[in-house]
């Protein structure tokens, strides 16, 4: 690997931890980002000559903090304070500044630093898309251009969106104190929710844009791995990572050569990523041991049933129906019921499923999948005219041309 290659990877993987610590020092996102940028520039100069530091994140925190402090002093023409415990960045003083530093760098803070950094990006005042964009920029270090492409908007629009998001976050009451145990759980839940939104933003996009949105899924998986390393005994974090892995495993099988959606039951299961599935199943095994079921674990278990079926006909739909019933209890939502209806249609037939989703109409009148499923069920029951109305509505609500094309295919079958 080239110098630039390994340095880039090392900077990327050190970023969350370094940004988390710098944010703790500066209590300001922009200042932390600036300090991190300075440290990265120093790394690009220093690392190729001296080799990679033993702990790249500690190195970056140290250099970033000093650069920012020096900068502030220059601006305010202040002398260095007596008793300052700073160590020189080049390691000329002391036997092994890096090792000392790594020891001093609050190992205990590290978990909370990263959680705080993510939590701030997931601030409840921000709309979901801004939360995701901010996390991609600040935590994952994606460029504005990359994020703009992932959201299929212009670069300047994304730049503005990020600036707005940052000023809203800094205006808001940001919790910098290290949270106690009880406050950690809701923070972790909020962060997990945004990671899953990020994943879905990448996953549900289809067609020509698919290749540029896949990074959203990759970044979401990276963040979930990071959090799970920090909070290793949280069954819902295991569930979330397992869920994303078993879903992402199908990415190569979800679209045909023309970019058209291939339904789960029609996918070539040979294209599924077995390594992702195996890891997802291993994580789910770990999570289940805790006997503290949660929505991510249940959804991962549903994904695992699909993953375990060698052929679509072997899918255990009765078990999926049961798991959706559990999910309905944990997180009642018309969308969950809608998904359950798919399993019900396999187990008890289209009429039972249709009966189940009819009451959802008032809540889901703007939801593409509701009309898609309703149309498909009516089609199975031979009620072609009603099916056509539902499918037309689905096309009108489709988010992407590929979704619309998929529904049109059903419509074509009706007219034949």
């Amino acid at each position, binding site marked *: 690997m080239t110098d630039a290659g390994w340095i880039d990877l090392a900077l990327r*993987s050190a970023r969350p931890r370094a940004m988390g610590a710098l944010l703790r020092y500066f209590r300001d996102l922009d200042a932390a980002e600036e300090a991190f940028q300075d440290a990265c520039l120093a790394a690009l100069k220093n690392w190729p000559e001296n080799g990679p530091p033993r702990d790249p994140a500690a190195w970056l925190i140290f250099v970033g903090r000093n650069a920012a402090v020096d900068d502030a002093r220059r601006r305010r023409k202040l002398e260095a304070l007596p008793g300052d415990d700073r160590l020189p960045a080049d390691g000329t003083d002391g036997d092994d500044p890096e090792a000392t530093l790594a020891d001093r760098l609050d190992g205990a803070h590290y978990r909370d630093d990263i959680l705080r950094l993510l939590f701030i990006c997931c601030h409840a005042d921000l709309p979901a898309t801004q939360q995701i964009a901010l996390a991609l920029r600040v935590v994952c270090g994606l460029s504005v251009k990359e994020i703009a492409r992932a959201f299929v908007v212009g670069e300047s629009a994304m730049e503005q969106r990020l600036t707005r998001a940052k000023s809203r976050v800094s205006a808001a009451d940001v919790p910098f104190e290290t949270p106690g145990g009880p406050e950690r759980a809701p923070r972790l839940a909020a962060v997990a929710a945004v990671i899953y939104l990020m994943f879905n933003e990448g996953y549900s996009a289809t067609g020509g844009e698919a290749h540029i949105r896949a990074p959203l899924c990759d970044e979401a998986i990276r963040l979930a791995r*990071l959090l799970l*390393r920090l909070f290793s005994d949280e069954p819902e974090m295991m569930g979330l990572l397992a869920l994303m892995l078993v879903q992402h495993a199908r990415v190569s099988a979800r679209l045909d050569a023309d970019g058209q959606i291939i339904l789960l039951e029609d996918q070539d299961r040979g294209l599924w990523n077995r*390594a992702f599935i*195996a*890891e997802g199943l291993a*994580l789910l*095994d*770990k999570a289940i041991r805790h006997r503290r079921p949660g929505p991510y674990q249940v959804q991962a278990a549903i994904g695992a049933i699909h993953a375990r079926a060698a052929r679509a006909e072997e899918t255990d739909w009765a078990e999926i129906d049961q798991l959706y019933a559990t999910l309905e209890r944990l997180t009642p939502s018309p969308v969950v019921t809608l998904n359950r209806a798919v399993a019900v249609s396999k187990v008890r037939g289209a009429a039972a499923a249709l009966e189940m989703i009819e009451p959802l109409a008032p809540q889901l009148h703007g939801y593409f999948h509701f009309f898609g499923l309703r149309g498909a069920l009516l089609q199975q029951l031979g009620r072609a005219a009603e099916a056509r109305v539902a499918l037309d509505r689905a096309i009108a609500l489709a988010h992407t041309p590929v979704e619309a094309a998929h529904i049109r295919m059903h419509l074509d079958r009706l007219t034949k």
Partner: protein
Amino acid sequence: MLYALLCYNSEEIVGSWSKKEDDEILARLAVVHERLQAQGKLGPTARLMPTTAATTVRKVSKGRRLEAGAEPPTVIDGPYAETKEQLLGFFIVDCTDLEEALSITRELSVANPGGAYEIRPVSLFLPGSGVG
């Protein structure tokens, strides 16, 4: 003499390799594998899943030992993190799930108390055939 070669690297960095980079490295390794295999020098090779998939079984301490099931070992999520103990050996076992792997480690820990077992799912396994 048989030697075990243990591989260390930052999983965060290895995990950020693109599919292409990963494939390239595996292809380069395969060349070495084949040569060693042909020379009758290669035993089993394994690539482990990330440490997030690990479960650690902390065994009963030495001295307080022997009666089966007297003090159940503690099961901890994540990899074995102590640096005071050293890697002394490993088993490869074929299990249907984590529960089965755990029950095997319990059996082993009755026979050999003290220390810990880290259970790491294997993502890639090549049995090899050169040694033995």
